[in-house]
């Protein structure tokens, strides 16, 4: 039997605001054994009287960084864990973490491409680990991220995605803003649908590997749409955030 994935004490070394409701936390983990892009960690919070809760968070950082991982957390109003992370945790605090966890929703350079990443909101987090890994490993497999956000200000990792797309190594980002668009916006303005998927998929071709992460409704549309567009189901991997995920 495999060894237990044991709890480790992480030290929060940096907190970065990604959007008004989303923050990234860098967790220093001296004993971290590495992870594969797309995997997650479990986080455990324990109160003085022994009450504890656990949640899973996708790892946002690429495995090439050693001794630390980033998680990116959306603040869910009324939630038990995300408001604590946003409002109470400061650099220097310690958090119990274990991982990495999950072995299917992963992409590594060795798997090759072309690669289609489809994200809704904070569903971009595990896909960002893949995009960062791709950039760091100097892969040039064609890759496109189709990313649905509600408004311009809610685009997570906006500047870094611009930089990755500007690198000229075959990575493209296609944004859609479903609720409100800034003046002069030339991107998509509707929820992801089959026509949008067809446009995103077309230059990548039928051998594409697809990874979709986001709310259930979005992932259903994406996965079913890609099957109808001819991708074999076993090349489509999904991760869904239910309506809870607090």
């Amino acid at each position: 039997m495999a060894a237990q994935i044991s709890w480790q004490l992480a030290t929060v070394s940096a907190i970065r605001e990604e959007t008004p409701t989303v923050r990234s936390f860098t967790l220093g983990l001296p004993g971290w054994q590495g992870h594969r892009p797309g995997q997650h960690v479990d986080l455990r919070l324990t109160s003085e009287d022994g009450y504890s809760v656990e949640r899973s968070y996708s790892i946002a950082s690429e495995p090439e960084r050693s001794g630390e991982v980033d998680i990116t957390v959306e603040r869910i109003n009324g939630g038990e864990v995300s408001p604590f992370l946003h409002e109470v945790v400061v650099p220097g605090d310690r958090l119990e973490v274990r991982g990495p966890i999950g072995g299917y929703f992963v992409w590594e350079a060795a798997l090759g491409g072309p690669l289609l990443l489809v994200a809704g909101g904070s569903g971009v987090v595990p896909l960002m680990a893949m995009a960062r890994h791709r950039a760091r490993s100097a892969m040039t497999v064609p890759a496109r991220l189709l990313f649905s956000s509600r408004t311009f200000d809610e685009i997570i990792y906006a500047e870094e995605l611009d930089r990755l797309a500007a690198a000229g190594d075959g990575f493209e980002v296609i944004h859609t803003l479903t609720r409100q668009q800034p003046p002069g916006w030339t991107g998509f303005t509707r929820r992801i649908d089959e026509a949008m998927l067809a446009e995103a998929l077309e230059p990548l071709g039928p051998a594409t590997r697809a990874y979709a992460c986001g709310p259930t409704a979005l992932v259903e549309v994406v996965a079913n749409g890609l099957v109808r567009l001819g991708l074999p189901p076993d090349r489509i991997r999904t991760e869904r955030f239910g309506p809870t995920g607090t």
Partner: protein
Amino acid sequence: MTDRFVTRGFVGRRDDGAGGEGLSSDERRRRTPPGQYLTNDFPVLSAGPTPRTPLDRWSFEVGGLVGAPVRWSWEEFLALPGRDYVVDISCVTKWTHLDMRWKGVSVDTLLEGVELDPRAAFVIAYSDGGYTTNLPIGDVLNNQAFVAYEYDGRPLAPEHGGPARLVVPARYFWKSAKWIRGLRIQDRDEPGFWESLGYNNRGDQWLEERYSGD
């Protein structure tokens, strides 16, 4: 590491969350396995696209180490004696939903129609889309498991595993195979989809058997 690391500043929401309304906080606590939180939602978690098999091409088979395999069409399956179940479900992703209401056929009923080989020790549930999960046969007998085709009074939705899914309330929910098409009886264990990808082979939520080695 001991379990008594205290997270600075964490108090917790305790009983204020949704789920288990109308129950005393004692009972809510008693029915929440370690590391889980209560919800009224029914989150969807799937590794790939939702398979869609037309009902006229759907069948359910019990095979493997049995005298003769049995196979039911959709109509035949619905004609089997079904019953209502009200059970608590815990997903390894941390949610627990109390008193989920299902209708389905007990695995005992499905096995009544076959003669089990004396070597029968494990059950592999297999599904449309290639999903599998493994269970000791003792985990699915004596009304511990059923194949559900209704949830909350309605036909089971495709994203929740419809037309039919296995439900094994005493194990994390990945053992409750969605889109199930049959049970294969074996003499040896064989890790299923998630059991091969780092998740626990048994998956008892009360022992918090989430991952390999737990």
